[in-house]
């Protein structure tokens, strides 16, 4: 178990079921996702079966179970972006990458997250990839954008 996780658990002496969600949140904050090992560790600590923890964690949209990808895509679903068609943008990304929000592609290249307003409403609809904003994205452009990153990532991987 990583020291970071140990430290988090130490902050919850005599913890029981009720502490599960806050612990999961803190661990995800720290590690970016909930690994298999971490779930087992938390389970042993709280005396809860892994299936139960996984069940609870998957009930909420906020948890992810794989490390984020080389490129982390955030799709804004705030009101302004929504009005400008962010749902279709999200669909296009899902189709292109064959993953759902909070998942990571098999090759580890992309991960996807849906976020609330990221404060760039003037540019709606907005997506951000590793912090880089793309303004006024249309579903048709998604393929192109992702391909640029894919190329970059592959070349990067080779060197």
């Amino acid at each position, binding site marked *: 178990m990583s020291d970071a996780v140990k430290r988090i658990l130490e902050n919850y002496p005599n913890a029981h079921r009720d502490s599960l969600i806050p612990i999961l949140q803190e661990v995800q904050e720290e590690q970016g996702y909930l690994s298999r090992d971490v779930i087992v560790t938390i389970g042993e600590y709280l005396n809860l*079966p892994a*299936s*139960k*923890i996984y069940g609870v964690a*998957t009930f909420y949209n906020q948890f992810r179970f794989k490390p984020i990808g080389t490129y982390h895509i955030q799709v804004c679903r705030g009101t302004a972006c929504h009005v400008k068609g962010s749902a279709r943008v999200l669909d296009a990304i899902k189709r292109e990458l064959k993953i759902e929000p909070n998942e990571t592609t098999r090759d580890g290249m992309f991960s996807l997250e849906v976020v609330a307003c990221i404060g760039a409403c003037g540019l709606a609809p907005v997506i951000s990839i590793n912090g880089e904003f793309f303004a006024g994205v249309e579903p048709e452009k998604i393929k192109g954008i992702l391909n640029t990153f894919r190329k970059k990532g592959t070349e990067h991987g080779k060197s």
Partner: protein
Amino acid sequence: MITIEVNNRKIQANSGESVLTVLKREGIRVPTLCHLPDLFPTGACRLCVVEIEGYDGLVPSCAFQVADGMKIHTHTPRAIRARKTIIELLLANHPDDCLYCVRNGDCDLQDLAEELGVRERRYTGAKNDYKVDTSSPSIVRDQAKCILCGKCVRVCEEIQGVSAIDFIGRGSGMYVGPAFNEGMNISSCINCGQCIVVCPTGALRERSSIKEVLDAIDNREKFVVVQHAPSVSVTLGEEFGIKPGNDVLGIMTAAMRRIGFARVFDTSFSADLTIMEEASELVERLNNGGKMPLMTSCSPGWIKFVETFYPEFIDNISSCKSPQQMMGALIKSYYAEREGIDPKNIYSVAIMPCTAKKFEADRPELIHNGIADIDAVLTTRELARIIKLRGLDIRNMEPEGNDSPFGERSSAGKLFGVTGGVMEAAVRTAHYMITGKEMEEYTIKDLRGLDGIKETKVIINGMELGLAAVSGLGNARKLLDQIRNGRNDIHFIEVMACPGGCIAGGGQPLAINKAAIKARMKSLYDIDQSAPVRTSHSNKYIKRLYDEFLGKPLGKKSHHLLHTKYQKRDVLK
């Protein structure tokens, strides 16, 4: 006693009872999908709704208590319509698969659709594209057929204390599965099959070995033998509409021969052998201060449970192989030698009440140089399917006997089919081994019946022995925790993974109703009561086996063929 009114008829009821309990007793059938008799109601499916005067909405009868003067209406147009709509909604994303489904003809969902007159698809939901999980040697999980009733989850957690599976995700994407949606084979599942027994649909079923067995029978090179577990003869009949508890041993044996098995052996015989070895082990541990309490080893789900959750007790478990595996080992050694058959050409099948037996047969310790003790395990349900497939009318068959030399059992071996039975059988023989005398009364009343934990003391030669018979692994947890915390007045513990023992095993006909299980139990007790030979050590075929081949209990040959070891398991728990 209180008085209530059901469908305008006055009825007596006990306060505190659920409406459903009273209706059942009165013979009024209200359908249920999520109800489990001994567990707290969840009210999840709402199929059991009724109208109660003074209440606006429909009320789930499983989760609602009767009160004095209550006026209940069970089959009003409104209640029936509500039930029908629920079924229609459940069918909205259900695969139209009945013709190809193992549960065709034995499915609660199908029955209810029929009963409520569902004749068209009124709702269509998006279908999920789940993959069928066939990773486990025992359990197949087909989520497309799951109606999310939650019974499997609750049995696994509340009865078995395992929690291998749970609800995962939410909304329309919700499903039931193990953590990380990985295969059942790497979950903490101990293969008991109790989830199958409660599943109202074909979403959970056993991993079938029917095809392998029929192929082996068709293969001229193979000498295909079969053994049947003690409980199978008192449950199989139910699959053919015979009243629960009827012992169909003779016609079952006849049917097995017609199917094409070259020899039919009785696992109760090797249960007698297990008793010889296990009672010797008990006596040996008592005399030489071995690890106590001794725990039985015939239930493979229980073994896996200890290996997974309580590895510190591994050395408490008897090293005896289960009767299935003892028989398997004997068939491919003693019997093969005697008959001059190359063990490689023997295909050994076991008919078991149990899905965990499939897992057991696959354990690497029980396969030597590529030769497995057992080649295939079929559940009672699978045997029934083969009998039907072969068009055999067992109700009109002449009974036949088992084959020698593994066909004659004592009734002690037969008792392996019910919780407490192994212990009774073992005590009979241990008493004889210690004192040289038979017990005055063989039956130990305290060890009989369906209670989950039964305890008693017996005195043998002035020595007091604490005995406990446990069934249902949730109960085993309770007892193991007590021992972990220092309890030390128990010397011998029998555990069967399934509540009630093998008669209610995960491979048995799908009646979870208590009455059927009681009838199965009674049948085994009756067999014992009227048997001419009631102890394993007086089975003369067992004596002969030791004389001719094995030597003595716990001897070199026994050690090699009849004993095994266990391992700690690191799985996702």
